[in-house]
């Protein structure tokens, strides 16, 4: 059995260029690995036939970029033309888009090979991928543990070395939190950095697509190709082209780092905190200043997030009504029954709960009491972050409060579920970029991650700090143990 997939993208690229391997070798290896790890349940839909076809087509083409012929997995809420896109929901179980998300067009331009659509929480609503209509994916480090979510499948398939790269989406931590639980690098770029066109909306003002990879450099490389202003998305930002890898390897001496006290308070488990503190010491030793500070409204961010995210979601998900596409209740006696039965049967409990809460929040006077207030405090959160970044280069903290918990553990307590994302949500509220970097392991050998946040559009700096730590920490992030056995 070949092990090309254990090589870095750069190494694979060289082999392809030197014609020592062909894209089909990579595709075959990916599907061997996916099939022998089907118990991880990372994928909802595999794109095997098309991937093989594409790999064969590429044989006659010139290897013109680093991602040429590289397999990639796509979260199943990103629309792929001709390839089923379910959002892990019964309501879209048989939905095959006739259009590509802008990021998919960009991936296709680079001749990457899409191998499948990854498992996730239904409509990205959840933080352990257990709300999936297709059942939860499993953590490659310990199959009894959750992957985190909502981009659980995208995290697990990269962590388990089934695929070298994947795309996830992050509304309130959905890239960074599963990346932390699965021990991979996950970036939520600045809001507006990556086009949302074709990403099935959960909360439009918070959603952002981002890269999930085995290491920092490949993450920066993947962001290089998916970012950019898109005429199809009015919220995408017009920014000059930049190379996100350009600061990798540069000195981090004298960088100023802030740690919000709330992020290291008693909401975080000791094991996670110990690992985090060790990394802080490493940063200090490397010439960084680390200050502990207070940021206003941080502890309210989850509440505010719920109001805004669920309010927007209640509107975004209204279109699934059985009239135009997706699941439709058969032979309804009237319009009312078509609507209610389609949505009652088509949506899972968590989605229905959030739609109901969101509708309530926007109803009548509530809109002013809750939604408007949340929007105004959200502005204040942005401002308090901006103020911190006047003095500091980064804000850091642990990505999650605990390592991945048991998949069997009851996760029906909605408040607790949101606490899973308490450390990552504020970043979405402020539209900032944030990255998870694996920094160590729990005593049960479960990955622990650090969250690095910078001001808007300074992803390159995040990669600089992250790659420094990655190099210093030298962690073996392959859950299969020593891959060169």
């Amino acid at each position: 059995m070949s092990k090309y997939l254990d090589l870095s993208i750069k190494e694979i690229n060289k082999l392809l260029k030197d014609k020592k391997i062909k894209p089909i070798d990579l595709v075959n290896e990916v599907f061997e690995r996916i099939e022998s790890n089907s118990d991880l349940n990372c994928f909802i839909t595999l794109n095997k036939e098309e991937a093989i076809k594409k790999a064969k087509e590429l044989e006659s083409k010139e290897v013109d970029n680093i991602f040429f012929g590289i397999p990639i997995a796509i979260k199943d809420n990103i629309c792929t033309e001709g390839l089923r896109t379910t959002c892990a929901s019964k309501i879209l179980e048989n939905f095959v888009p006739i259009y590509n998300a802008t990021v998919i067009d960009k991936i296709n331009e680079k001749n990457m090979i899409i191998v499948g659509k990854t498992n996730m929480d239904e409509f990205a609503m959840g933080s352990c991928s257990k709300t999936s209509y297709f059942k939860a994916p499993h953590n490659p480090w310990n199959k009894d543990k959750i992957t985190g979510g909502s981009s659980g499948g995208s995290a697990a398939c990269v962590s388990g070395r089934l695929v070298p790269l994947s795309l996830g989406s992050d509304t309130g931590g959905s890239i960074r939190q599963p990346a932390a639980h699965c021990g991979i690098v996950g970036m939520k770029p600045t809001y507006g950095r990556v086009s949302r066109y074709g990403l099935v909306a959960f909360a439009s003002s918070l959603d952002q697509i981002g890269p999930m990879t085995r290491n920092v450099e490949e993450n920066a490389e993947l962001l290089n190709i998916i970012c950019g202003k898109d005429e199809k998305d009015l919220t995408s930002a017009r920014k000059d082209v930049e190379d996100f890898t350009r600061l990798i390897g540069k000195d981090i001496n004298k960088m100023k780092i802030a740690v919000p006290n709330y992020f290291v308070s008693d909401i975080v488990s000791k094991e996670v905190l110990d690992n985090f503190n060790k990394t802080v010491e490493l940063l200090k030793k490397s010439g960084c200043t680390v200050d502990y500070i207070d940021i206003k409204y941080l502890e309210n961010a989850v509440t505010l997030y719920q109001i805004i995210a669920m309010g927007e979601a209640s509107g975004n998900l209204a279109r699934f009504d059985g009239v135009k596409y997706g699941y439709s209740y058969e032979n309804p006696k009237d319009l009312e029954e078509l609507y209610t039965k389609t949505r009652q049967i088509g949506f899972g409990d968590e989605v229905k709960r959030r739609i109901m809460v969101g509708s309530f929040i926007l109803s009548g006077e509530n809109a002013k009491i809750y939604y408007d207030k949340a929007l105004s405090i959200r502005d204040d959160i942005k401002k308090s972050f901006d103020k911190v970044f006047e003095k500091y280069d980064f804000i850091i903290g642990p990505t999650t409060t605990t390592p991945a918990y048991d998949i069997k553990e009851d996760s029906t307590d909605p408040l607790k579920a949101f606490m899973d994302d308490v450390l990552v949500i504020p970043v979405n509220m402020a539209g900032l970029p944030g990255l998870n970097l694996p920094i160590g392991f729990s005593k049960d050998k479960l990955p622990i991650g650090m969250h690095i946040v910078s001001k808007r559009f300074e992803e390159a700096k995040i990669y600089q700090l992250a790659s420094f730590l990655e190099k210093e920490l030298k962690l073996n992030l392959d859950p299969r143990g020593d891959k060169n056995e």
Partner: protein
Amino acid sequence: MNNYKTTVGIEVHAELKTKTKIFSDSANHYGKMANTCTNVIDLGYPGTLPTMNEEVIRLGLRAALVLNCEINKHMHFDRKNYFYPDNPKNYQITQNRTPIGVNGYVEIDTDNGKKKIRIHDIHIEEDTCKSIHAEKKSMLDYNRAGVPLVEIVTEADMNSAEEAVKYLEKLRELLLYADVSDCKIEEGSMRCDCNVSVSKTDKLNTKVEVKNIGSISNVGVAIKYEEDRQIALYEKGETFKEQTRRFDDKTMSTILMRVKETGNDYRYFPEPDIPFIDLTEEYIKETKENIPMSADERREIYRKAGINEINIGKIIQNRTISDYLNKFNNRINLVIASNLLLGDIAAYLNKYEMVLEDTKCTDEKFIDVVNYLDKGKINSKIFKVILDDIMESDSSIDEILENHNIKEMSEEELISIIENVIDSNSKMVNDYKNGNERVLKGLMGLIMKETGGNANPELVTKKLVELLKK
């Protein structure tokens, strides 16, 4: 029963005359085969996002300006949430909190002089799709989904069916002449909903919304019907709940659609997919400067040119004629020009079902022929003779006249004919000098007869009066 006061407020939806839809690049066309002008954005497919058609903002702003509104320079869109199959996303993108224009007015002429109908607001939104109900099935045509609209909401400022009709006629004229909308009620590009209530006191009574009225005159009919119906109920001591009725043009009556139980809860919130739009002073100024000439400005020009009110009315009714006429303002006699356009030329075009651009009547030919008539080189009788040639041949007016062997009568010739007639009809001349102006017509007839119809009647009258004064 006559001491009831009627109160009417009107909501008008007008489709904007853009090439493409408000949030996508599919065509904004009426009358195409069902579901051929639509795409995944109009259909609200998962993951699709709206883009913003700049032309919509410009036309919306124009409309707000001609309605004398204050402009919301920092504006955004909102989502109006409600489930209905004609609403593809089950929310409509509209403007709730920051309508593009507020506090405007439209001035109408009433029997008691001018009256300002206040405009509460004008906002931009997307149209829904069209549903057609057939027996047990409903069909949806998404060609209309995402067509840009402005909704114009008045205060309850109208007190009669007549005032409502006048308001709508004025509004239609304003939007039409600003090139904002083609305002074709029969095609649904202008739709009116009226809120009508009657009361004996200053306190307003329960209002009834009437929808689905297919013409401006039927708005009047519907309001009168509602006045009678509501007054009859109150006179019987009955009351009723706030309700929506539709106008039925077969029975010319209103029919109950639904009773409004509670206030509608549309759960409005700011549209997160469309950033705020800032209308700069410069943009507003530029938009204002580029608004085509209004009907009132045109009326003023025509009045100054001496065109009679009836003809002015006819010209304003026909934007094409007005635009054509305006090309020649200050260059030719507009009275003559408008008489031709509304008279012989209109008859010719109607007969052949043509528009002026389809004919060979170039601007040069039109200017020449009007000037010849003006200076008396030809008269209207001759014009009729050469009309077909003007419209159908490539020849110039001079060539046409030559071909018809029509020679211009010199002024000397004309004067000598007039003098002859005066000399040989001394009784009529004396009558005229004694104040009987009617004999002028008789003298005119005699002169025209002598000229063989080759003289311009206006010129003849002018010269005749001059010579009679000697």
